């Protein structure tokens, strides 16, 4: 009898434990509860129309709309559409033979991205759809439907009717969860090439990485013009130049000498993440460009993305107690970078003048001339990496100045190589920009 009691007791214990564990596992497998807010409307995946998302997030949407009207300039940039070529005509010489020498305007806010790409004179009949990659919230849906290759292989004019929305919610957010995601397949590929996966990034890292959907250096591969980031070796300037040299890529040939030139786009992400002091401190792009603001009782990240200098109190003041001091530092840093940038431009113009003359000399040494062309290519890409980057060096001041120093060094070396190639010491003249008869001023 006692034997049975023992068995029954053990049976009851096992049964109770099994039931308890079963209940716990059942609880574990319950769907997670809805957090934060109850959405008013369900947003479909890849929904391009930001006004629909705006029903759930009126504050964020209302501030996003402000990016269209916000046209305030800053000392070096801002959101006003001015011509860089008129402001600094050296760039007409530097981009000679390339569409940027005809039309190079300061970019405006996200709300104008689609209108401005449709208006630029850099687009021609042969331009590919690739140039829309960063201009519309229709893109995530189109990439999903056509794939990156299918999208980029189309012509600009072919895909134009399908692009109805400017940059919006779907470019950075996943519908439903609202989490930040990489939407540009080229960024996904570029990370993969480095063995990285954005799905392992923290929220704070994503608050910078989503900007890299667009604010990066890129080029287009092959006849299909596949949008590609040159990141396989890494995102530092030398690694990007090595990458382009390895594949022998050039954006255009400089007229006269035929220098294989590179055009830098807008490498904000590469500049900022190259060990800048703010990046090292854990600051993300959104912390300064989308500060946390209050409207009535509600607080939210402003989606009126613009220069923090236009509203420094919430942008800088969250961490820096003395905002005026901070603004003074920014002004100093940017003035120094701007001066260094102009010095580099003068060196580049001198190098170009020497190379052009040397290339026309009958008994020029081809090996030395070739060395001069390579130096010009490397120097100008370095300069452009700072010049085309939208912060006048502030995103990473030390890095920007070191890049410009090397660019100036290489540009002067290019000039000296041209002198050696042409056996003509008179080409060592400096300040050629100031003695040019007149630089053609482009139409703004």
């Amino acid at each position, binding site marked *: 009898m*006692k*034997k049975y009691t*023992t*068995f029954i*007791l*053990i049976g009851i*214990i*096992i049964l*109770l*434990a099994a039931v*308890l*564990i079963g209940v*716990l*596992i059942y*609880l*574990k497998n319950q769907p*997670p*509860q*809805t*957090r*934060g*807010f109850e959405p008013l409307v369900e947003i479909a995946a890849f929904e391009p129309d930001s006004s629909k998302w705006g029903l759930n997030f009126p504050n964020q949407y209302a501030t996003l709309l402000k990016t269209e009207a916000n046209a305030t300039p800053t000392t070096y940039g801002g959101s006003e559409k001015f011509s860089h070529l008129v402001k600094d005509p050296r760039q007409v010489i530097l981009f000679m033979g390339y569409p940027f020498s005809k039309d190079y305007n300061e970019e405006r806010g996200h709300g104008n991205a689609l209108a401005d790409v449709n208006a630029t004179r850099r687009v021609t009949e042969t331009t590919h759809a690739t140039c829309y990659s960063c201009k519309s919230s229709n893109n995530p849906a189109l990439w999903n439907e056509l794939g990156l290759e299918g999208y980029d292989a189309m012509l600009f004019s072919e895909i134009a009717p399908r692009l109805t929305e400017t940059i919006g919610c779907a470019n950075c*957010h996943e519908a*439903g*969860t*609202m*989490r930040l995601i990489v939407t540009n397949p080229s960024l996904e590929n570029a990370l993969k090439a480095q063995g990285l996966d954005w*799905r*392992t*990034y*923290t*929220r704070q890292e*994503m608050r910078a990485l989503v900007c890299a959907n667009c604010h990066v250096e890129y080029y287009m591969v092959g006849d299909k013009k596949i949008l590609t980031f040159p990141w396989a070796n890494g995102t530092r300037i030398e690694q990007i130049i090595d990458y382009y040299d390895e594949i022998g890529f050039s954006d255009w040939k400089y007229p006269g000498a035929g220098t294989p030139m590179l055009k830098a786009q807008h490498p904000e992400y590469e500049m900022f993440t190259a060990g800048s002091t703010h990046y090292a*401190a*854990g600051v993300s792009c959104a912390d300064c460009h989308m500060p*946390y603001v*209050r409207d*009535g*009782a*509600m*607080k*939210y*990240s402003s989606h009126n993305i613009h220069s923090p200098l236009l509203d420094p109190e919430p942008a800088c003041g*969250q*961490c820096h107690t003395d905002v005026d001091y901070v603004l003074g530092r920014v002004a100093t840093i940017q003035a120094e970078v701007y001066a260094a940038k102009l010095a580099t431009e003068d060196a580049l113009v001198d190098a170009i003048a020497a190379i052009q003359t040397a290339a026309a000399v009958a008994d020029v040494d081809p090996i030395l001339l070739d060395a001069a062309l390579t130096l010009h290519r490397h120097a100008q890409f370095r300069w452009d990496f700072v010049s085309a980057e939208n912060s006048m060096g502030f995103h990473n001041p030390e890095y920007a100045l070191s890049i410009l120093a090397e660019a100036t060094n290489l540009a002067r070396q290019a000039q000296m190589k041209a002198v050696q190639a042409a056996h003509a010491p008179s080409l060592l003249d400096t300040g050629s920009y100031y003695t040019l008869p007149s630089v053609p001023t482009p139409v703004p």
Partner: protein
Amino acid sequence: MSAKWPLIVGVAALLLALGVFAWVTDAPAYLGHEPQTCNNCHVMDSQYENWYHAAHERFTDCTDCHLPHQNILAYYLYKGYSGMKDVVSFTMKTYPVAIRANEQTDKIVQANCIRCHSDTVESILIGAQPFERYCWDCHRSVAHGARGFSLYPSQHKENGK
């Protein structure tokens, strides 16, 4: 079969059930200091978001300010007490709509302000004036930003957490 067996099986079953309980509830996380753990409970959404976007986020976790730090015993005793209080009030739904720090919390937070900022406030502490205010009576917005309600922006948690 001896009478010891029900005891052995009972203890083993209990340990197993406890293990599963710890796994299901992510209990070990509560021994740590990750702010995401405090925010497991959605009533902390607004506090979490406000802290996340304010300057102290770079330097402090919730526990740096909200738990006593004079010694490890006080730290874990209060952590246990405070955690159980939250479990009960959340389960019984007795927590207030507007959650405010109570007097006990005020004292703990104040001690922690001084713990880190002692160099800055030394002259106040040893000064002639009575020291009878809390730091945040004036420095309202340092820890959780300006007053206001923050929506948890999405239905996901920290990536990889």
